[in-house]
């Protein structure tokens, strides 16, 4: 069963084409990462999937319903969303902000304590939002998005403002949610996040998917087929995989001259740059 299924989605804003022809599927229970340079259409797609925007072509299904239905009350309970412009009530405390959401979802009071623990803000719960740091705000908006433990979670750059300790804490929480059955669709500019958290990723460029698959698979596909041998003398040899290289390696090996040996894989970041031709943003 698919949590999300996107077929030939297109979106143009006037003459500006944000999404050309995007198709992919996300099975239930997966953590899926959407990568792509700034302006490649990630947020646009996320808005289409949550019925905040209408596509100009193609078909998208979310939890087996047309994505346009996502603004129906019954559907809205099933997903949660964090975007870069999710607003908070500035004059209310963290706790009071969460209380608004708790009431709207009709949840018990204890859900606030749970979610505060999740985002590591229990100690600051009485603080007014207008005095919070950027990273704290981001965690409050995340808390608002997950307070009802949705089946499907959309996260638009969830950790962009967080320090490594809080990022790791949030990742742990997201994995826990995922184990309890939440499918997670996230966009990120952080390749480490994509690699450590996501089972599969897609790389979007200029409104088209350039690669999709598990990070390891992508690395396999994009490796350049060479091997580096580091010798005990300190020399480094880069070899292609052929018989001559095999003979050379056998020679070094018999003389005990090999220190280290590895295939030359690209990192996810390298693949990203290779496919999108741009630096990380």
């Amino acid at each position, binding site marked *: 069963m698919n949590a999300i299924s996107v077929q030939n989605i297109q979106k143009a804003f006037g003459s500006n084409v944000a999404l050309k022809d995007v198709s992919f599927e996300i099975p239930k229970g997966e953590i899926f990462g959407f990568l792509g340079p700034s302006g490649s259409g990630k947020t646009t797609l996320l808005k289409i999937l949550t019925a905040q925007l209408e596509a100009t072509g193609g078909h998208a299904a979310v939890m087996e319903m047309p994505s346009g239905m996502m603004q129906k009350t019954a559907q809205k*309970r099933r997903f949660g969303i964090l975007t870069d412009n*999710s607003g908070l009530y500035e004059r*209310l405390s963290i706790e009071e902000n969460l209380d*608004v959401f708790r009431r*709207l979802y009709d949840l018990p009071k204890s859900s606030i304590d749970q979610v505060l623990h999740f985002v590591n803000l229990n100690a600051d719960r009485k603080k007014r939002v207008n005095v919070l740091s950027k990273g704290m705000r981001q965690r409050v908006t995340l808390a608002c998005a997950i307070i009802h433990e949705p089946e499907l979670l959309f996260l638009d750059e969830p950790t962009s403002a967080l320090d490594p300790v809080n990022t790791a804490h949030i990742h742990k929480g997201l994995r826990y949610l995922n184990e309890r059955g939440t499918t997670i669709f996230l966009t990120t500019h952080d390749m480490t996040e994509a690699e450590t958290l996501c089972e599969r990723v897609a790389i979007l460029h200029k409104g088209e998917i350039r690669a999709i698959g598990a990070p390891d698979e992508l690395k396999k596909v994009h490796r350049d087929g060479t091997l580096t041998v580091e010798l005990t003398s300190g020399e480094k040899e880069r070899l292609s995989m052929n018989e001559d290289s095999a003979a050379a390696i056998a020679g070094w090996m018999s003389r005990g001259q090999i220190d280290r040996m590895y295939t030359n894989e690209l990192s996810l970041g390298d693949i990203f740059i290779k496919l999108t031709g741009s630096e990380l943003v």
Partner: protein
Amino acid sequence: MNVSLKRIQAIFIKDYKEFSRNYAVSIMILFPIAFALLYRSEAGDQAAIYAFIMNFSLAMLTSFVQACLIAEEKERNTLRSLMMTPASMLDVLIGKSALVFLISAAVLAFSTYLFGYETSNVMLLTAALGISIVLYTAIGTICGLYSKTLLEASLSVFPVLIIFTAGPFALAFEEQYPFLEVLRYLPSSQLSELLVAMEVGAAAGELARPLVIISIWAVVLTIISFILYKKRLMDQ
């Protein structure tokens, strides 16, 4: 229609907290009270002065607060977040309007008491003011929807304030400028007329007319505000 009492209550509570902490907006409750105290011992036409205080308060408090509540929710992107929860557009609008209605009703009642206005027909006065609050809330919604920021919203209420509160007075020049006749149909003029008619003990028919006109304003503006609300918020 998709509304839920629980969700309306959630919006109501939240807006109450925000209102009570937003002094730039909540200070508006002082205007009607100050006016009532200021004019209480004034000699002259009690009904006309009282009508002026009520008309002024309705624009300055009811419309102003509603416009600010709506505009701020847009400016801060919180409406977007609310729309992603089970809350419907109507839940949000009704929750806000209910708060503004209650605040207005309480403040107007208190001002009436302070002013010492006595009426022969409490029911009729209550009905006229109640319907007026609905009407001015709708105006506030419309002003809030057309403003992008809190500041714009507070400014947009001033034309309403001027036309609606000055309208009944401009009627004095009706003989020189016949076109001013249209001002007679402003809800503020009608409220004025109603109060004066009540004072002189007019017949039921004469009392009913202003009330009906005010009600028509309330119904029409409420419908317009709902339609605009749905439309304006959809395409953002």
